[in-house]
């Protein structure tokens, strides 16, 4: 289980996260929603080690990961798919996926191949395009590729940042469905950041609403979805 307590992250004098506490329950989808600038991406980037927190704690499976480098955090089973389809355009699709499993290639040689096969089964279009450069893929395919790269590291916790950003509704649905399926069938824990609150709350078990770097609501997703006043105040619809 992931536990975040009183987390503060600053960029110079700007406070992006202002004392956040939350937990991501095992084998569940927890979604973090909120308007632009609420600190959602910063939260994920601090958990995965890309940003340094100024105070607070992050505990993963009983161990503090606050001071660790991103590459060590991945090795402990937390995979982060940052915002904006983060793939390497100059590498092929297959190389992008393989990249996520490089650190396991010696110890778990046979499982690396199996993990790659599973990723291809989840997103067959990537298999068709495996020798193409990632830069030639569509936005949706890049998102699938970024997720696949994360999955072949065999994570126990998947941090997904705005997978719906800039994608057509049909593609969003397909990607969210795949993640949901994965969570239910393999017991993967998911922390899903979304601006598209409806989609996210529809699939999540638990919802956390952020505003200006603070947690304003922390409830079961269905409850949050039904609360019209909260929605109107913080999400604007």
């Amino acid at each position, binding site marked *: 289980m992931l536990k975040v307590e009183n987390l503060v992250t600053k960029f110079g004098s700007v406070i992006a996260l202002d004392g956040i506490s939350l937990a991501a329950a095992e084998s569940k989808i927890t979604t973090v929603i909120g308007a632009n600038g609420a600190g959602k991406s910063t939260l994920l980037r601090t958990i995965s080690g890309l940003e340094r927190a100024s105070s607070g704690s992050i505990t993963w499976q009983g161990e503090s990961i606050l001071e660790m480098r991103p590459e060590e955090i*991945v090795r402990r089973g937390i995979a982060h798919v*940052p915002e*904006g389809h983060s793939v*390497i355009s100059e590498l092929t699709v297959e190389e992008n996926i393989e990249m996520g499993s490089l*650190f396991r290639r010696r110890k778990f040689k046979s499982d690396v191949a199996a993990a790659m096969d599973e990723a291809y089964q989840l997103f067959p279009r990537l298999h068709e395009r495996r020798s193409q450069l990632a830069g030639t893929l569509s936005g949706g395919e890049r998102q699938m590729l970024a997720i696949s790269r994360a999955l072949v590291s065999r994570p126990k916790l998947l941090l997904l940042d705005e997978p719906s950003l*800039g994608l057509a509704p049909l593609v969003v649905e397909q990607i969210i469905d795949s993640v949901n399926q994965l969570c239910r069938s393999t017991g993967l824990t998911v922390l899903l950041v979304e601006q598209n609150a409806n989609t996210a709350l529809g699939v999540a078990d638990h919802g956390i609403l952020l505003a200006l770097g603070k947690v304003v609501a922390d409830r079961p997703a269905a409850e949050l979805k039904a609360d019209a006043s909260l929605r109107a105040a913080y999400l604007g619809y």
Partner: protein
Amino acid sequence: MDTFLAALFSGTSRGAIYALVALGLVIVWRGAGIVNFAQMGQAMFSTYIASTLINNGNSYWVGFFVALFAGAAMGAFLDIAVMRPLSNKKKSELLSSDSMRAAVPVIASLGILGVLQALAGIIWAAEERGFPAPAAQEGFTIAGNVAPFTSFDLFVISIVLFTLLATTLFFTKTGMGLAMRATALNQEVAKLSGIRTNHTRTLSWAISGAASSLAGLLITPTSNLSPNTLDLVLIVGFTAAVVGGLDSPAGAVIGGFIIGLVISFITFYSSPEDVFIAILVVLLLVLIIKPRGIFAGKDARRV
């Protein structure tokens, strides 16, 4: 016709060496984002080590391989001892702008160059000495005529081609090579994939160090060895890398051969004094017409 062939052969052999120097520069540039001006200082230092070993009665090949190893070790050491602390985020926040932060390691590399040259002067005395070649430096004799091509040229070209092939295979076919390419292209995604980018960066310094030491070993038999002999080679190699595109290893290699041929043809058909001007003209033309280099890849598409 004889002059033409002589210029062609000598240019190819020289170009092979410049290709190595340019490749070394490109590997560190892509892997660590630094133009390493100390590179040929490292090469000079390891060539002196080889020279000392050979003068003390060891075989050429002992000196050769120890120098390559020393070049790699020195590269790795410089990264760990100098460059890594300099890129430490907390300390570099003291500097106000990104461009200043980017300048620090480059200036440090100039400092390292100075230290290495001074050290070499203290240890080995700052006078020129010869360095042996492992193969004959007289032209082949074909049907009674001396051809403008020596066994040493052949040795240089084949060992450089072998090195280029080996590095290409390493970068494209191995997991470590993929990790290094990923680090060079996008550090954040590489780190999130679990790649220890500190290690891959050190490895790129080591490979670059070995490649430039090889260049030093191959060029000193025709130019003698002193603490400053390789300065000009760095400038020529840097020009080659810029001509081919600092981002492109293949471009750097081709740039090396182009510059080698330009130098050789100018030397044979005009005079050696014009070489430096010719290099600068080529550099300026490339910078004006294709500033990113002839073979630079397209800018990555940003969405």
